[in-house]
């Protein structure tokens, strides 16, 4: 497959591994922000190619993992209302809320449907005028253009039966929260390539400067990630702290202007709760006033819901890269993919699920 297979070339991967071994003279800790990058690192064993001192911390780049418990509970509540068709990406269906996940709601009779695109949910609304279609709009900036398009389409079509439960989150505030934490040990970042394809990388320049950390916009195939790590380590070795772009075939500094304009038209920046981390100001997107009629929280009266996390789950520390899954006492014992305590175990991108699937054997050996 073009633009995929060539970036999985084992020979070139080994060349990058050798180059990294030569350029790294000291230990460095690098965080990859995006869950998709975590997935690739684990799937292709990229961390096994890194020299001893380079460690990768897995960041909170998994919207599924950071979607607050109360959003899941609101989704659950809305899904069970009569006449509602609740549409969602597949990732969200097994994320545990306090009364179960969306599949539990489905088992209880809710009409929960998986869609591959928010536009499919709009089509569901057109095809089912007597039902109310609610779409769960989660994701980082990569997904915001799609949800914005869905609202724009519903608006143009004068749809009265389409609503969205919006829980978008933004990457730069999350990175700032990590960098400003007294526990932070991360020295360099691989920024999420597809987030930057939409937003560009201007927002990362002040972060690199303020905290003195190199940030490399990185893609998702093994060679992209290896090159990104190389560029980051090279900066660290040379004492530089700049924003560089590894993913030049897809990302420009200004990002995608039509997408950014549309996001600005439909959404405004709001504070957001990050599951396991807490509230971060100006870290999310919510619907603008003039699109409030599409807001599912208003339509279904669930705006005020607040929920506490189960005490044992330490996904917050894991999302911030402070702890590793196998350091959690509940990992693989009380918390498993079948009975998850937190979202990092459920999401296919969650650090805990990734470790469980691919590393359980190693974890048991090291206990």
């Amino acid at each position, binding site marked *: *497959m073009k633009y995929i297979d060539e970036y999985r070339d084992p020979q070139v991967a080994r060349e990058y591994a050798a180059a990294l071994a030569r350029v790294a003279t000291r230990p460095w800790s690098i965080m990859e922000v995006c869950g998709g990058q975590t997935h690739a690192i684990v799937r292709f064993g990229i961390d096994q*190619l890194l020299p001893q001192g380079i460690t990768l911390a897995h960041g909170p780049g998994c919207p599924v993992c950071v979607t607050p418990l109360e959003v899941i509970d609101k989704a659950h509540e809305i899904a069970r209302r009569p006449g509602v068709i609740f549409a969602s*990406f*597949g*990732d969200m*269906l097994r994320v545990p809320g306090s009364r179960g996940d969306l599949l539990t709601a489905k088992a209880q009779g809710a009409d929960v449907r998986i869609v591959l695109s928010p536009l499919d949910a709009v089509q569901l609304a057109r095809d089912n005028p007597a039902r109310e279609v609610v779409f769960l709009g989660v994701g980082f900036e990569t997904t915001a253009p799609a949800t914005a398009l869905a609202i724009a389409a519903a608006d143009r079509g004068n749809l009265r039966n389409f609503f969205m439960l919006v829980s978008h989150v933004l990457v730069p505030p999350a990175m700032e929260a990590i960098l400003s934490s007294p526990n932070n040990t991360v020295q360099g970042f691989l920024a999420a390539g597809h987030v930057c394809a939409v937003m560009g990388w201007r927002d990362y320049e002040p972060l690199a400067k303020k905290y003195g950390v190199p940030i490399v916009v990185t893609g998702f195939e093994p060679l992209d990630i290896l090159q990104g790590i190389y560029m980051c380590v090279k900066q660290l070795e040379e004492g530089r702290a700049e924003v560089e772009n590894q993913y030049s075939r897809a990302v420009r500094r200004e990002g995608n202007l039509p997408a950014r304009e549309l996001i600005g038209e439909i959404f405004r920046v709001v504070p957001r709760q990050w599951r396991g981390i807490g509230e971060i100001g100006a870290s999310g997107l919510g619907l603008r006033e003039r699109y409030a009629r599409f807001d599912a929280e208003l339509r279904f009266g669930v705006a005020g819901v607040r929920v506490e996390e189960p005490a044992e789950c330490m996904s917050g520390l894991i999302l911030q890269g402070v702890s590793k899954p196998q350091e959690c006492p509940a990992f693989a014992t009380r918390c498993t993919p079948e009975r998850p305590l937190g979202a990092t175990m459920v999401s296919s*991108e969650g650090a805990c699920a990734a470790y469980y699937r691919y590393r359980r054997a190693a974890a048991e050996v090291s206990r």
Partner: protein
Amino acid sequence: MSDFTLSCPIPISDTPQIMLAHGGGGRLMNTLIRKMFISAFDNPLLAAAHDGAVFVSPGGRLAFTTDSYVVRPLFFPGGDIGALAVNGTVNDLAMCGARPIHLSAGFILEEGFSMETLWRVVLSMAQAARRAGIDIVTGDTKVVEHGKGDGIFINTAGLGAIAHDRRIGPASVKSGDVILLSGDLGRHGIAVLAARAELALESSVESDCAPLAAPVQALLDSGAEVHCLRDLTRGGLASAVIEVAETSRIDARLDERSIAVSDPVRSACELLGFDPLYVANEGRFAAWVAARDASRALAALQALPETRAAAIIGTMTGPGNGAVTIRGALGLERAIDMLSGEQLPRIC
């Protein structure tokens, strides 16, 4: 999916839909059974029209299996619920090292189900049965009220004869055994998903739904010491290998580079975020064979057109907890584990 109705006109045209009475035990049900099932499945045991099929036992050990079929949509490229219902049970028997002989077929039909659709399913079952060399010798029909059943559910049970005295199953697997895979992965799961209109995927992938009795027989006839056979249905290759490894308590190592996945399947998997190792197959199996017989076994499979692409994909490395690792595209190893449920399309 060929147009059966042109060459085989539906035998029941006065009741276009299934009614409760078709399950009522009276004249309507009798007509349904005679004109549809007995006529299509066409064999003396079934034609006897008794409560059960009575026949002389083939002797020796028997294999017995059952499965129920609920696939949606009912028709998909490369197959349908009827072909699945026959081949799925035929293949379970083949995985026991048995020669499939007879099947039963139980139908639960929803009131209102299209008679023409039922006829298409039944014809497909008859065709699959002929291809697999078995007959459907007994059956049952029930009708549930509209809204109480999803159109049609089919259960098939199968009987097979085991002519040899080999013990084929996880208990016979040994360290050093070689794992063979009969063909490429992922066609059935992707074909069924792509056939779901709401996903709006255009794909050329067709289900690999097919009977496996012949390749299994060829494998057994080759003289290779076969320790275990597994079809790769729900949960795909990965789940089957993990199950055998955990049951036999022997660790396994696979080589991803020798596992074939066609480009159309790969591209659909990339789009959905699926791992082909876990996608369902309905015409593929894995075989655990003594190391010294690996080439002989492979040659036997490659000699048949349906298993021409058979390959050696791994080994059972040594006693352990049944941990399974796979060497990936970059030549690096990772552990693989069971999924908790089915794969769901992901954005993340």
